[in-house]
């Protein structure tokens, strides 16, 4: 077939775009977002996707066009003996530079919101990663961690009030882990010897996955947890239930840190 190779390369933009167009129909896309800042991240993702998508389509089509037009078998004209163009170099340096700088500045606020300005509230819960489990310590009625009334849970289930600002303290008991809530678009590595803060607001009740996203050993794959967002009253009831449960178990004194 004439121009077989040009068309082979033309498949790149065609199938490349098609993959992203059809993926949602197969239910493969950004997972359901239930958080507040998740929307900013998704919007930023989509913005970059459209922008890079346009660059992708244009450059790949130019490549296809050149391969097709300047195929040595069909191109009768002599080659263009050119070593470059100063003007073009300037154009394709300045335009991408400005665009990239724009993306850089445009996202700074989102980053600051997600990682730099924690809300001025007390910790909702302390999360500890250990091989291969997530442990949770709630401050209990006095709202203070590391006191007698703390509630310690080791069943990998985290309960949080919905529609409220949450501030987590996250640490590790052994190696690195990463506390990843795909549906809230938050992720933070936990590092032994360091305490990290993580904050977000869940807007929908229900249970969602907690994934460990940093290789932590052979059982990394099963270091799974669930986070449940509950209305305030159910949440309070749940914690009261935990306290009662804990008081009946005299053996389990919360370990001091």
């Amino acid at each position, binding site marked *: 077939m004439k121009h077989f*190779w040009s068309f*082979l*390369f033309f498949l*790149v933009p065609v199938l*490349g775009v098609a*993959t*992203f167009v059809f*993926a949602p129909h197969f239910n*493969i896309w*950004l*997972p359901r977002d239930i958080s507040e*800042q998740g929307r900013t991240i998704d919007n*930023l993702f989509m913005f970059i996707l459209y922008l890079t998508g346009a660059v*992708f389509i244009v*450059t*790949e089509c130019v*490549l296809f066009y*050149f*391969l097709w037009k*300047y*195929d*040595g078998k069909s*191109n009768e004209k002599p*080659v*263009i*003996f*050119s*070593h*470059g*163009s100063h003007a073009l*170099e300037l154009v*394709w*340096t300045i335009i*991408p530079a400005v665009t*990239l700088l724009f993306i*850089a500045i445009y*996202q700074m606020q*989102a*980053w600051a919101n997600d990682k730099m300005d924690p809300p001025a509230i007390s910790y909702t819960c302390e999360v500890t990663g250990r091989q291969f489990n997530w442990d949770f310590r709630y401050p209990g009625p006095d709202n203070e961690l590391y006191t007698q009334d703390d509630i310690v849970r080791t069943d990998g289930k985290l309960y949080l009030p919905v529609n409220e600002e949450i501030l987590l303290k996250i640490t590790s008991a*052994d*190696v*690195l882990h990463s506390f*990843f809530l*795909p549906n809230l*678009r938050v*992720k*933070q*590595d936990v*590092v*032994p*010897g*360091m305490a*990290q803060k993580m904050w977000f607001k869940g807007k929908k009740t229900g249970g969602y*996955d907690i994934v460990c996203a940093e*290789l*932590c*050993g*052979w059982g*990394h794959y*099963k270091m799974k947890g669930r986070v449940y967002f509950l209305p305030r009253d159910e949440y309070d009831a749940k914690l009261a239930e935990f306290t009662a449960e804990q008081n009946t178990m005299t053996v389990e004194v919360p370990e001091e840190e």
Partner: protein
Amino acid sequence: MLSSLIYDYRKFAMSTVTAETHAAHGEHAHTSSFLKTYVFSLDHKIIGLQFLFSTLIWFSVGGLLAMGIRWQLAYPWRAMPLLGNMLAGPEGGQIAPENYTMLVTMHATVMIFFVIIPILAGAFGNFLIPLMIGADDMAVPVLNMLSYWFMWPAFFFIGASFFVEGGAAQAGWTSYPPLSVIQEAAPGSLEGQTLWLLGVTFVGIASMMGSINYMTTIIQMRAPGMTMFRLPMTIWAMFITAILQAFALPVLTAAGFMQLGDRLVGTGFFLPEGAMANNSPMETGGGQPLLWQHLFWFYSHPAVYIMILPAMGMVSDILSTFARKPLFGYKPMVYSISGIAGLGFIVWGHHMFVSGMNPMLGMTFMVSTMMIALPSAIKTFNWLGTLWGGKIQFTTAMLFAISFVSMFIIGGLSGIFMAATPVDIFIHDTYYIVAHFHYVLFCGTAMAVFGGIYYWFPKMFGRMMNDSWGKVHFTLTFVLMNCVFYPMHILGMQGFPRRLADPYHYETFRNLLPLNQFISWAAFLLMASQIIFVINFFWSIFFGPRAGRNPWKANGLEWQAPSPPGHGNFDFQPIIYRGPYEYGSPETDEDYYPQTQPPKQTPESAEGKAPVH
């Protein structure tokens, strides 16, 4: 001073060698033993081929490890046919979770440290640098030989690590402590990890010796007339890469020794106070796990450019040759690789956005990372400019080079998502990252390597590879690798995490199994289709048609030497009159204009062809 001494010595040696080569009609003048010629050879071409064969063997090892990963992701916990017993050990073909983490660790380790880095610098760098600059050999041939032989302890350590108690390293190719330091933390953190560190250290020593040699050679041993701005892009890229290596490697080596110290004598550089895992005895600590990440990425980010700049150089040469037209924007190309190299040292933090590093620092790394996409963009536009207005010959080498350009666009653009810090919070450590680096490293660098092999094969072995089978190999590789790696972007979009033996028990990822099975089958076929290449390669070494000096009608200096070049490379003293990209020049009637061909205007400049005795 020292280098000029060396230079004088080489010049002296060259004149005698060329004389001898003439006398022996291209045969090896020194009637040296087999051992000296082919094993402990000082000849850069033999050393280059030694690197080539060693790395290609490791390429297949790394590929087989990847097959194990893909099997597990397609059919979790099902016994793997064929390879199962080899990869999985005594579990009867089922890949145990600790073996899965070993597979991902060792796949990356082998591919990065034993394939990509040594094949570019070691194989192509060695073979091409003296030939392309008109030297008879490297500046310090003994150092060159040692740089190859120092790979062998590394081969041994990494190879042996599969057989020690607990198996090979399992802490990822990034070897983050404490997992990699506390012996109880993982089975592979027993001797496996120590051997891993020793292996990587030896690769480092080997690369260091190579890069010192390359820098010296390129600065000191260029033939008369070969100014820096007449060097082919391949050589510029090798030069910049050597500088990157020389500055970045000491940091990795030091970090490696610190980790060895932590593991063997309890120095605790990377362990916080009281660190423990899996009921290990408490460590004294006093260190910081993040310190390792900083040191590791301070090397490993520049290393990703070590893994692509030479490929970019080779692609530039191949594109220009087969577009039959000058490289578009030679100087901007040189400046952009220099820019990449410079910026490459201040972006390492983009691997650590969510590591717990100061988020303000993350912001600055984000800006520098955005800026490093710029030189990559400039290079891409110049490659397109090179094709514009040419007379493109679709040889196998050219197809691989074009596919490099096409694929690098994807890999470069996906980098922008990850450079955007808020987006990276979500896609960090997901398959989006895996897609990104396979697009730059496999679809990019590995394609350039294949292209380079098809292109320089005639020079290496004096025979041509079969072009039709080359095209079959190209087409299958091109189509299948896209089936493998492109869908990984949308896996990553869903948050599908990397290095997870069985992600399907998470509700969020359950529906991704069919797509993973598709990817795995494409990967198996991709692996199988490389057999075509292997057969073509070996068959052509012995039975390919003879190539002659310049089968592609190319300008580069290497094409004026005999194929394969004898000891001392050139059978005449090369004098260089112009850059390597003067295809289609109006100054000559041919469509190419070799660098050594004297210009018409100069009357009777016979010196160009006359051997200097």
